[in-house]
């Protein structure tokens, strides 16, 4: 496979996947490593399923090929399932244990999937589940859930936690630096349990 490390960040438009991918990109710049990425913009941002590809040490195109991602960071459990085929054999999925039921399910009166069903279908991939909302709330703002997720995933990324922290501090709004710092650390603590 390619020599770099491929990260797929997925979620729902509005959950802050773009900020998360910017943090990864910025951390690469801090470490002086090449990086490429691709993301969903435009109409799909209106509550649709969104994805950001980040190729750490990427020299070529920005797209990750299904079956080759080293890690998926998912802000919504159902989205983790939608993109599961992207992860390579032996790869990791770090996911929020909560999910939003798509509105179409309600409108059509279909049965909503349950957390147990989704977990069963995610099967035996290296899964790391966490309660991002609760930790973000503990850190001081529900908006920091994306940074919690990055903290948890930081154990598996080829970037030093220090570079990631610096990148977070550079990119989040000035007033929220403290909250996001805490969110990152809470996530990192929770993610430690996922390492074999």
């Amino acid at each position, binding site marked *: 496979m390619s020599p770099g490390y491929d990260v797929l960040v997925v979620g729902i438009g509005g959950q802050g996947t773009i900020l998360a991918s910017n943090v990864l*990109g910025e951390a690469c710049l801090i470490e002086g490593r090449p990086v490429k990425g691709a993301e969903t913009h435009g109409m799909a941002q209106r509550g*649709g399923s969104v994805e950001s590809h980040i190729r750490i040490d990427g020299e070529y195109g920005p797209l990750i*090929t299904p079956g080759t991602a080293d890690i998926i960071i998912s802000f919504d459990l159902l989205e983790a*399932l939608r993109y599961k085929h992207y992860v390579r054999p032996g790869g990791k999925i770090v996911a929020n244990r909560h999910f939003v039921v798509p509105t*179409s399910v309600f409108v059509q009166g279909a049965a909503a999937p349950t957390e147990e069903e989704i977990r069963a279908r995610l099967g035996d991939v290296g899964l790391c589940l966490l309660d991002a909302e609760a930790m973000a709330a503990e850190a001081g703002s529900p908006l920091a859930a994306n940074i919690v997720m990055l903290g948890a995933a930081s154990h598996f990324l080829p970037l030093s936690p220090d570079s990631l922290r610096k990148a977070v501090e550079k990119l989040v709004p000035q007033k929220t630096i403290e909250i996001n710092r805490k969110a990152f650390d809470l996530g990192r603590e929770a993610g430690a349990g996922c390492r074999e």
Partner: protein
Amino acid sequence: MSKQYLLGNEAIAHGCLESPVDFVSGYPGTPSSEVIDILRVQGERGYHVEWSVNEKVALENALAAAWCGVRALCTMKHVGLNVAADPLMTSAYTGVTGGLVIMSADDPYAHSSQNEQDTRCYAAFARIPCLDPSTIQEAHDMVRDAFALSEEFGLPVLFRPTTRICHSKGDVTLGDVKASTRVGRFVKDPRQYVVIPAHTRILHKKLNEKQPGIKRRLAESGYNTCSVKGRDAVIASGISATYVQELLPDDVSFMKIGAYPIDEAWLEEFVRRHEKVLVIEELAPVVEEVVRQVAGCVTVHGKKDGHSPYEGELSPRAVAKIMESAGIRPKIQFVDADPLPDIPPRPPIMCAGCPHRPVFHAMRKVFRDGIYPSDIGCYTLGLQLGAVDTAICMGASVTVGSGIYHSGEESDIVSTIGDSTFLHTGIPGLLNAVYNGAEMILVILDNRTTGMTGHQPNPATGVTATGEATIPVSLEAICRACGVHFVETVDSYDLVGLETAMKDAKARPGVKVIIARQPCVITARRAGIKRGRYRVDPDLCTGCGLCVKFGCPAIEIAGEKPHISDLCSGCGVCAQICPFGAIAKEGRR
């Protein structure tokens, strides 16, 4: 010089600042919009920047600026170039003195578009140069240099990044931002700028005579490169070149095309040194056609013999498959990995509290068997509510409505169009419908902004691209001036008001206009408007499900009964829908 992690469009905007640019115009369209959105918020600006009302208007403005000797950039999405095609084709005849760069962003796979047309074909049609970047760094460098190329040739230059350039990110090395000292001066020259037949025949000849020189110059530009490695070769263009480079075996030659028109002699020299050449490019077989012309008895593979698709976007996996099919073994062997089946889809939807939703709701109630032509904008999502029957291009809701009427169709025709789209190309259609005696209703969904592309202001908003106050145009006055007698303005959140206006309109002859007005929820939230939150009283709720069918994403089902989540923006429409008075503002009652 500095290195930054940037979105393609940010890098492109920076390239323009380095050039530097003097005049910027465009119309928003995904994936091109961020370039102007960045240029319009720069603190110290040495250039004019505007959101024009449509692409034709934008290009004519930019062309005139370039005639005056300054550097002009005009941005749009690929289908916008259709609107601007009229000035485009003749601007190649008149030429320019200052550099004119027309950025037309293509969207292979139609991520956010109505078709997958290829801007490179327009460049060939107009006989002007076209630059097609393969990386973000190259996009930055190309746009910076494109102004000088335009001045050198005296021609507009098309710059054609695709979605995967505009909306990709990468580490980009940037140059310094420069301040311009150019001031526009119009030098009269009727033989150049007045294209009467006697002048234009000569201008056409001159344009044709420029072609060989352009090809030779572009062959040396550094954007078209090659390296000979073996008997087989792959030629690729745009972003697909990077996919090929990742997969190319060491003994296969490679050519990358980034600038058009291609110099045939240079291309032939490369092609003839091989036994087999595979051409990989997205959309139209632009490179492949030239390769086939010069190939002689060299075997050429590509779209025309079925190895590569004409539609959609390419990816590393797609490129690997094309290479395998053409007998070139890619360096990486991908295993097929497909999505799991039966995962409930999550398409984009109108926001909680979107003012378009109640309008569609009322429309479907009053005009049960109506025909609903619609247009291009967030409201095209009304398709999910069964309230959109047609959408083809900007402004066509009105014209499709009048066309259906004149075909003899007797159902009620209710067209929907956004404020920005109405001002873009809707007005001539309305004028035409009135003039030619159509019977129809036009609902203008007036949310005071250009929502879908990122909330750019328009002439009805009352501010310019750079945030200066300007006179907001009156949609009512425009409609009346077009000859419409029935023009009613209603609050989009007032279901009774909407239904009353629609019933009134239904009873009248001719062309009727209803303006449903309420700011986009996203801009309203940014402006600090807080309406509180609504909640369902479980004691009053009977579980009938009517509010759920309305489709607001804030209304979820928790057990038997609905529950309103914190996505709620407080529009209050669901409270008007509930027949049992079970929904009310939080804190009331």
